[in-house]
């Protein structure tokens, strides 16, 4: 019998369990991260199943139940128009998630495109794109989002675009530096030698290796975009009525009742903080797992 005939059952026997046990291991090794993941899961659940969780419509006004204390019937109380706050927070998760995910995805998309092109092509294209990234990074996040939101007008999709723009630079930078490193790898040379087009090499071979840090950055930016949306709504821009946005629940009309009905102000703020907290915890743990070099 030659060595080649030796069975390889040991490997195949382990494989069906390895993914699950890997997850279990990470959950134990990163308790904070697990908590973060759990929080995020709760919010995603609320956003998806909002119709089933909330007893009231988030936009139904009712003069007879204005400003009720949290209690039976209305778990978190009602606001100045008689709308149930719990329902508004649950549906608000949808908005925050939509804005957060939307702007992060959009920002990442452009960031990856810019970073990849810049790193791979090099030369004056790189110089120009680097300047664009510099410019986008030098204008403060909120100011850029503010002017963009003012330019586009108050609407959900406009808010997503407005917040995505300031998120582009950081992603682009990281992708670019990764691309620069990968560009010199031998497998790229090999692919070129075989006759693959530069575009294919960039997209099919270099890009997948840069995705790992992207996930980490994206989770951090998710939190930042939720906060930016809240600030924009607080300043009067952002997602308009009647979409229940957590940020807007904290601004103008509600702020009047900051002492007579503090639950109007406390709960949306807690929702924002918790959501961002969860994404940050999760993002931290992800960073520790996937790429220790990226730690802050």
């Amino acid at each position: 019998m030659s060595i080649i005939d030796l069975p390889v059952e040991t490997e195949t026997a382990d494989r069906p369990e390895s993914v699950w046990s890997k997850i279990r291991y990470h959950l134990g090794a990163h308790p904070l991260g697990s908590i973060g993941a759990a929080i995020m899961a709760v919010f995603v659940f609320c956003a998806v199943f909002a119709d089933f969780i909330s007893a009231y419509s988030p936009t139904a006004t009712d003069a007879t139940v204005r400003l009720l204390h949290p209690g039976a019937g209305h778990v978190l109380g009602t606001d100045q128009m008689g709308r149930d706050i719990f329902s508004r927070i649950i549906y608000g998760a949808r908005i925050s998630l939509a804005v957060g995910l939307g702007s992060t995805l959009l920002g990442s998309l452009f960031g990856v495109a810019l970073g990849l092109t810049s790193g791979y092509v090099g030369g004056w294209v790189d110089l120009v794109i680097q300047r664009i990234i510099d410019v986008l990074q030098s204008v403060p996040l909120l100011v850029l989002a503010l002017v963009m939101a003012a330019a586009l007008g108050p609407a959900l999709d406009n808010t997503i675009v407005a917040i995505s723009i300031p998120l582009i630079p950081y992603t682009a930078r990281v992708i670019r530096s990764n691309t620069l490193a990968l560009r010199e790898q031998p497998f790229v040379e090999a692919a070129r030698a075989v006759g693959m087009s530069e575009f294919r090499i960039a997209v099919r071979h270099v890009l997948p290796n840069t995705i790992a840090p992207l996930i980490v950055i994206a989770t951090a930016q998710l939190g930042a975009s939720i906060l930016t949306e809240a600030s924009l709504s607080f300043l009067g821009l952002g997602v308009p009525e009647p979409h229940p946005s957590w940020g807007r629940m904290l601004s103008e009309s509600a702020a009047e009742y900051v002492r007579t009905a503090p639950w109007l102000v406390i709960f949306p703020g807690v929702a924002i903080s918790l959501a961002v907290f969860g994404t940050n915890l999760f993002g931290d743990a992800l960073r520790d797992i996937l790429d220790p070099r990226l730690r802050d």
Partner: protein
Amino acid sequence: MTLERCGALWGRAAYFRREARVGTYIIRRFFLMLLTLFGISLLIFTMLRLVPGNIADIVFNAAGMIDVAEKAKLEKELGLDRPIPVQYVEWVSGLARGDLGYSYVSEKPAIDEILPRIPITAKLAGLALLFAVTFGVPLGVISAVKQNTTLDYVLRVISLSGLSLPSFWLGLLILMAFVAYFGAIPIYTNPPKGFWNTLWLFSIPAMAVGFRSSALIMRLTRSSMLEVLRQDYIRTARAKGAPARTVNYRHALRNALLPVVTVIGIEAAFLMGGLIVTETVFNIPGVARFLVEAIRWRDYPIVQNLVMFVAVVAVSINFLIDLLYAVLDPRIRYAS
């Protein structure tokens, strides 16, 4: 000429080449900085023009009517009817001369509106950064040195919450607490007189703004410190029997602080967002709140020049830090 002498001359020449490299590095960075500023001016200019409505619209809107002829006249007066590239060139050439134009709203020179408000925001920002560094750095060091203990976890959770709380919410809660428990309120209604009054008025909003920055700095100090503590030379120092304190503070901290200094530069730009909302909540008449108001009024001269000012400050800080890095860290010089 012996070989040794050749070697010495070669070494001498290399020294001058190194110096020249630092020089070129600085010049290149300076030129790139100018290019970035040019890009920013283009960006803010075009974006403002994209925002629907101009000062004429706002001014007439306040009167509840639109008089088309008068509106056209106003636009002509302010130069808004000229082609956009012409307007851009006019603005930039004015900037170069030091002429910032006139505010559309108050009809006073823009510089008279911007300049007096800068010290107010500067005080707030300075105090916020001071607070952030004073709390962030020591707590980050402690967290790193006591890694994975309960203290570390607690500190990490607190710092993370600093990054998660919306700063205007925090400000609102602080105001509520103050009125509820002290009856007094740190709101700006008149310019404060004297050092202690100023401190009292600005320190609470500064803490609201600085909380977030302190969290960032704490986390960065911690990870940077952890990184350094793993290095070989630290292990060597420990093996040599140096006391923990010396190892931590003399060797590790000094090296760990380098990236933190970079971040403070970047933080200056992020600070602006917190400043905007905090100045609104605490009613502080600084440039941040003024910027939001100017955007609402479509007061182009104010918005453009103010954003340029903030950008210049941010870019200059980063440039100086790059310089500092180049001088301190030889690897950077050779890399370029």
